[in-house]
């Protein structure tokens, strides 16, 4: 499903984030990426979401290289991916419902269908009672879960999460990891970057450790 072929990424600042990465993820797999901060976990996810382009090598999704996507095809490709950011990037002038509905609005869904799906997604992350709240009224964990609901509401084939439990207490972090496992059970390919070794070990999934490039 996701394939890295000798991928390197060097930022314009000269910092080498990834060096010669070879990696294959099967469809429906759930994989953790760990490593020290600065080891390139975020960069790896960004390469998959086309938020960055590799300086060398190529990333293949479903067998076809991402470099072949034209500028105009990128939005459609991104819609197949659910990306969960460390900072959930919510819009503070919109309610929880409206935030989660954005991917569906972009897809041009009917309002009735949007309502049904948003409620289903919020239900899955345990926020069905916060539908009409605004992000400022939510705790960090709740905000993170709104971000997750927004990422999965469109039923993406690939779910990418960058430190989704970064600033949550352990119990909540565990909960969220189980939520991801659930989405994985439903068929999504899940790739999670996390530096929380204990938590990753407990999940008993395939784990990839990135070493910092010296």
């Amino acid at each position, binding site marked *: *499903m996701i394939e890295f072929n000798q991928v390197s990424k060097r930022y314009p600042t000269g910092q080498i984030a990834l060096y010669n990465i070879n990696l294959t993820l*099967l*469809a*429906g797999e759930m994989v953790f990426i760990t490593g020290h901060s600065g080891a390139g976990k975020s960069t790896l996810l960004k390469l998959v*979401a086309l*938020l960055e382009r590799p300086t060398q090598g190529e990333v293949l999704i479903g067998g076809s290289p991402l470099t072949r996507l034209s*500028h*105009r095809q990128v*939005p*459609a*490709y*991104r*819609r*197949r*991916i659910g*990306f969960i*950011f460390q900072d959930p*990037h919510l*819009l503070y002038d919109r309610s929880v419902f409206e935030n989660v509905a*954005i*991917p*569906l*609005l*972009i*897809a*041009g*869904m*009917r*309002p009735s*269908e949007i309502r049904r799906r948003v409620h289903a997604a919020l239900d899955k992350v345990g926020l069905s009672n916060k539908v009409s709240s605004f992000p400022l009224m939510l705790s960090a964990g709740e905000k993170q879960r709104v971000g997750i609901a*927004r990422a999965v509401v*469109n*039923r*993406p*084939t690939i779910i990418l999460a960058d430190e989704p439990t970064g600033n949550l207490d352990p119990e909540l972090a565990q909960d969220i990891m189980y939520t991801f496992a659930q989405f994985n*059970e*439903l*068929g*999504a*390919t899940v790739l999670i970057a996390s530096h929380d070794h204990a938590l990753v070990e407990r999940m008993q999934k395939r784990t990839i450790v990135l070493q910092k490039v010296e």
Partner: protein
Amino acid sequence: MAKQQAAQKRRPTARTHPLDAWLNQQKHAIQFSLQRLWFSPMSTWMTLAAIAIALSLPTSLHLLLKNLQSLTDSKREVPTVTLFLKSNISEQQAKDRAELLSDLPQVVNVEVITRDEAMADFRQITGFAETLETLDDNPLPHVLIITPKLSLLGVTDQDIQKFAQKLEVYQEVDSVQIDVEWIQRLRAILRIANRIILVVSILLGMTVLLVVGNTIRLDIENRKEEITVTRLIGATNAYIRRPFLYNGIWLGLFGGVISLVIVNVALLFLLEPVSQLSTLYGGRFTLQGLDGLMTLEILLASSLLGLLGAWLAVGRYLWKSEAIE
């Protein structure tokens, strides 16, 4: 293995028919952009006022010109040539000349106004009666009013002029006056005025463009975060652009509506004094307002200006942000 098969079958979204999707997106963009207008009523009203004022100036100038043109148009339909005969010509001589003239192929009709008839006409006009009483003699000449046949003569003013020169050679004729002369002059002036209005319209149209463009630019500035996030989620440029374009259309359209209100109120304000002036001159001139077509044109033009202004502002932003990416 079963899970992998499930993964293969998995579809990103239940397909919405592309046309339905497009319509839903439009509906949402319209709704959303209208909400945004209410979201910041103060800046919206100020923008609308600026647009309305910029639009009402060329509109009212145009109306003024149209009214002046209507003055000349009614006369233009029957250009006539007036022959003032010499004072020693008798009434019978005048009538004979008229008969001869009416036989000319270029002439449709010759009307004779004798000096007595002319005097009687003058008496009827208010204010002249007493003046005429003071005269011992009728100073007025006999007058022949000729309606030329335009199909034979040609329709331009020069053709009529040439015809008038021919009439001047008859010995009974004292002077010839073409009653289109003042209209010609007025029309020349109006043509200049027309150009001036065109220039003013273009300048003020550009003002509208800039006002809308700047408003949209500020709006984009305020919503940068939102644009970034939606783009990460997979919004196309068209999707990002759409609510801003509608916003531009609304600003143009509502600004146009307000400008029409301004112009029409100004017209009502003028209606009474103009008709008073008109009766003083014994005319039946009434002030013409904006007709339906013109109203529609103004609204269409202002909406288009709004759309264009928004397009330029968003286009510039998207182009810039893409270059950074």
